[in-house]
């Protein structure tokens, strides 16, 4: 039990949180919190968490072990994992081991409540998780880490995106062909599409318009992804040319880039939405339901063109959760209909895309 409080989260704004270091390597990233009760493995492998240190409000983590099948991509993307208590008994410490095996720093025994209130009131700064003997050492290490990591490549989507085209066979021979523009896609978007399509082609985020069109897709999916949507310049231009030509469905980052391509503006939210309990009013399915959310940016409603209607709202703060234009046949959804983690009620939007927007089965 000789417990050592030798791990630190140092925020760029100066606040320090002391906890127990469980291994991994020291890393820096934007510090964000997620209120989902379960789904740590899905979150850690979600590319949208690139360059982010994730703070879990649910205090007990790692309780149900690990499961390869739930990975949302091929790697762990988070830069750090922070919680109150990590499952670390003799019998089961699989999640702890997996994180540290992947060199992700893990801090437990952190006063996450205080940290979350700090993030809520002051926004989400960068921070670093370090292993240090004292506060001074922690501060020095953190400063360096934050400096050297924060200004690399701006287009994070490009980092998270596949660099090669990937073809997948769908499970519905009578379904459409869908092109996916990969901004750092969660696997379950692809799984949901596979169920409903005959063929999927997944393109890197900077793919050329001609390459995409050469596949003759019936519809385009713009996926989730990390970072600031304004940095995604190539795809924005590509999408601008596709609007009106072909049905487009954007999720999260895809929704934001779609908004930018329409001429709207996006803005960084104070601390974003991350959790599995956000109520959404869905004007397309005509329901109110709980959703899975993970975004730090949003589309500014006032800047959307007049023929694009805001059809989905986050009922907690009335922000834009989705827009639709029947003329242009485009749909943007800010949250995650693919769930994982989170509730499944919004799966119907995939059906809407395939059946109503793409028009399959014909």
């Amino acid at each position, binding site marked *: 039990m000789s417990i050592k409080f030798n791990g630190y989260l140092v925020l760029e704004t100066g606040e320090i949180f002391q906890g127990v270091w469980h291994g991994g390597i020291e890393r820096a990233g934007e510090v964000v919190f997620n209120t989902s009760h379960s789904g740590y493995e899905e979150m850690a492998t979600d590319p949208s968490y690139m360059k982010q240190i994730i703070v879990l409000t649910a205090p007990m983590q790692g309780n149900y072990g690990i499961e390869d099948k739930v990975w949302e991509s091929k790697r762990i993307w988070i830069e750090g994992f922070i919680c109150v208590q990590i499952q670390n008994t003799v019998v089961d410490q699989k999640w702890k081991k997996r994180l540290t095996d992947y060199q992700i720093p893990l801090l437990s025994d952190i006063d996450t*409540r205080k940290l979350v209130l700090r993030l809520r009131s002051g926004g989400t700064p960068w921070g670093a998780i370090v292993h240090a003997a004292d506060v001074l050492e922690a501060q020095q290490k953190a400063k360096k880490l934050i400096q050297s990591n924060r200004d690399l490549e701006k287009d994070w989507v490009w980092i998270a995106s596949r660099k090669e085209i990937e073809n997948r066979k769908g499970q519905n021979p009578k379904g459409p062909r869908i092109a996916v523009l990969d901004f750092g896609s969660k696997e379950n978007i692809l799984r949901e599409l596979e169920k409903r399509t005959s063929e999927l082609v997944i393109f890197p985020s900077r793919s050329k318009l001609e390459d995409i069109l050469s596949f003759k897709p019936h519809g385009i999916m713009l996926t989730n992804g990390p970072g600031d949507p304004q940095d995604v310049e190539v795809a924005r231009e590509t999408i601008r040319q596709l609007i009106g030509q072909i049905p487009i469905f954007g999720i999260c980052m895809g929704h934001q880039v779609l908004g930018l391509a329409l001429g709207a503006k996006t803005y960084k939210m104070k601390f974003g939405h991350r959790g599995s309990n956000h*109520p959404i009013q869905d004007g397309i399915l005509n329901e109110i339901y709980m959703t899975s959310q993970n975004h730090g940016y949003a589309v500014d409603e006032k800047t959307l063109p007049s023929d694009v209607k805001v059809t989905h709202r986050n009922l907690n703060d009335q922000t834009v959760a989705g827009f639709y234009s029947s003329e242009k046949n485009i749909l943007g959804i800010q949250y995650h209909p693919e769930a994982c983690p989170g509730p499944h009620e919004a799966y119907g939007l995939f059906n809407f895309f395939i059946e109503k927007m793409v028009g399959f089965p014909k």
Partner: protein
Amino acid sequence: MPRRQDLKKVLIIGSGPIVIGQACEFDYSGTQACKALMSEGLEVILVNSNPATIMTDPEIATRVYIEPLTPEALDKILEIEKPQAVIPTLGGQTALNLALSLDEKGILKKHKCILLGATPEVIKAAEDRELFRNILDQVHAKYPQSEMVRTFEQGIQLGDKLGYPLILRPNYTLGGGGGGIAYSPEEYHPMLLEALNESPTSEVLVEESILGWKEFELEVMRDHTGTFVVICSIENLDPCGVHTGDSITVAPQQTLSDVEYQSMRDEARKILNKVGLETGGANIQFAVHPTSGARVVIEMNPRVSRSSALASKATGFPIAKIAALLAVGYRLDEIQNDITKTTPSCYEPALDYVVTKIPRFAFEKFPGSPDILSTQMKSVGEVMAIGRTFQESLMKALQALEMDREGIPDVNFQVDHVSYPNSKRIWHLFQAFRHGHKISDVFNWTQITPWFLEQIDELVQFEKELPSQFKKDSYLSLLQAKKKGFSDARIARVLKMSEIQIRQSRWKQNIHPSYLQVDTCAGEFDSSTPYFYSTYWSESQVKPVVQPAVMIIGSGPNRIGQGIEFDYSCVRGVKAFQKRGWKTIMVNSNPETVSTDYDTADYLLFEPLTAECLLEIAHVFKPQGFVPQFGGQTPLNIASELVENNLPVMGSGLEAIDRAEDRGHFSKLCRELGLQIPKAGMAGNLQMAFKLDTEIGYPMILRPSYVLGGRRMEVIENRDELASYFERHAEAISVDKPCLMDQFLAGALEVDVDLVRGVDWTVIGGVVEHIEAAGVHSGDSMGVLPPQRLKQETCEKIEVLSKKLAEMLDVVGHLNLQLAIKNDVVYVLEANPRSSRSLPFVAKATEIPMIDLGVAACLGLKAQDLKLQNYNWSDTKTVSVKGVVFPFKKFPQSDSILGPEMKSTGETMGRGEDYSEALMKAFISSFYKLPLEGEVFISLREKDKEPMLPLVKELVLMGYTLSATSGTAQYLAAQGIECLSLKKVHEGRPHCVDRIRQGLVSFVINTTTGRTAIEASFDIRRACTNLNIPCLTESDTAEAFLIALKKAKRGDFKTQSLPPMKSV
């Protein structure tokens, strides 16, 4: 859509008296719903037969009816009130069943009344297991293999087919009543008979066993547009096989992955939609196979429930309130989240803490009933605790139980105490690890999910290392121990120090808990709701408390002898303090209560009621003082420790409490005042007792020191029984803890007096005359106000004496006195310097705002500040009778004979224009059938035969036929009374019990004394308990029953609403 404009007036059905399986959680939900609907401008009519509730306080609804929950009474109330709708989903199964019968009898239709929240179809779909299984089939949900059994023969065949063990679930019963697990045909056959008997529709679902599966529950809500939210997920530590009400449970669930959890959530949504629940709350129970992950649905309830109360307290989401608003037409997104004030109620709470619930049991009250848990609920109360981690919350909950100060005491480990679920299993789990047993062993014995076992094991390993760690680093080791939830008392035991040393060491090193807000959203949104829990894991979030503030200590888990009536006092006390400009800090650990609703007090602290926790609260919240007199015995027991630590007591001081509570002091005081008290003595062993017995005289009443609810109290008649008593209770008696021996005033009339004393005033709230003579615990006696047998002058004498006693004790605030009257002499039996069990009944019967006066007394108000002339209890025009309900049925080997040890779980109130009407209502509300004809079986002890002769003759005149055991029959024949003579059980068959079991007897009068005679007649009473046949074991009860029968034979009765409480 906003609320329905066609609704102006609604009627809410309460849940009746507290019984095992249906307790004060429905007071909480009903009260919350009433408040919500009243603030919507609706007229709310409330019907409930339980006087101990907050919801039956006249202020809670537009009009309150304390009337029997029967179709006849409801018909009358609907006729008077003509509401547009009835809400049946807030009063448990009682209210649902009553609603069904109102529907079936056409009463709703007659009064053009609709059911809101759940339609008869929904109620049936959830309760009728066959209908429910059809629904599950339609949504492709799985359930255990089972069949509905309607006859014994069919059941036998099915048993052979499904194999053992088997689970029996009778249709339409409460808390799994009449059900159980059968491991062999020998066990199965009698259980099947009983279960068929128990179901009002004679239907029993016989089910393949899912013993050892993991058990989960989802608390869900839905509005009329179909928006669906899960308020809380709950995971049972005890696997399937133990009723969920008897299981230790944890929220939110801890061991399901998101994939598994979402799949369960999807299934719950589908089931709810298919059942057709239009709006409101429901719970759905699931079982998950520990290795394959296969999932089955166990059951669903389309109403608020015990677990929804728990879920509300665990999350801060007020399920009952929202359910009420949804019922009148709102959508979830139209209702604001009370806690954040900025977000809507259509969301799922996110928790950044862990909640543990532990049930509390009363097996010690029912000797002969084995302490083994099964599918039939046995617990009488529960505690909840909140911590940042599972360990912290579990350990806090164990302290909150008030069973042991350390929380996890050392016990004599026995494997069967782990492998057979029982009320103390959790202690033995800890002990198993202390003895070095492996997680795999304990898992094999228990099938408890290893995750939980690991957590417990880790605590034990920590405890083992604590002494050496403490030597190395006292600060860090103490802090870690507190983070893991160890009580100071336990740390002291482990370190071989005193609790005070630990506390001092902790305080010196500034190790204090912090207080975090329960905000429904894990900190995501700002909230100002003052609902807090303590933890050693975080920094505090408390803003300075506005003064003056007072800390009110609740009554903790419900138990026999201390229940909902003390919550009434606490809640009313909070309101009374608020009216006088005080801020209130409510502390309690019982999730079923109104006092732990976040909008009852200005600050709610969900904490164990231990001196340690209360002192920490005082350290941060800085109240001017604390009030111990509302929460029953619990706060009184810790008052001195709080005062010693400089927390001032408000109301009666420690000296006054001690004068009343300490029997030596109290007897001395009485003697000084010239008051008669029963002759008494104390003996630490039998030899000492033998020296005293001639002086005290037989019969005498014996009990160990420091008891609540008359635990181990017995009346004994002679030396043999005296010796037997000392033998049987040896472990509770010692020279340090002597046995109290009191003269027993056989045949005396007993009364309860509740009064309030201020600086220069005293108000008598009322004198409740017990219907049963001395010897029956006051909590188990029926009572009547105003007294019916007491002489006017005796009554006056009692008033004078009571006031004098209050003055001499120097109580400030409440005083409850128990007196006995024999041959016009008044004896003082007991004084309780606190609000009492009878107080809510008295206040409602007399309209005197007793608690408000108690608060006025605590605050030092003078006679001139109060309208004392208004409070004259003898002005009361209506007659009120207190009825009592017992849990004998749930404890198979228990005897329904009444004695000095309290056994009842709840009470009812019958109000009438005269005694007979009030009695009749009280009996009906207490689940007595009132047979208007048929055979009465009589078995009387010798000394009752003559005095009861008039009563027996009366029975004949009323048209009943008689049967009796040979002795009584001969006596009656000699008196010229026709009577069928039956064999006693030991005289061979067919005997009297056979006749009762055949259903040929309408009711039974059976009086008996002495251990041997009591044992010999046990089967008679047990048969009655099993078959719901009234069995009157006291001559006075029998007389009262006859009065009620006569009234019932005359037919009609009236219902009337409770008048408002008089103003202060």
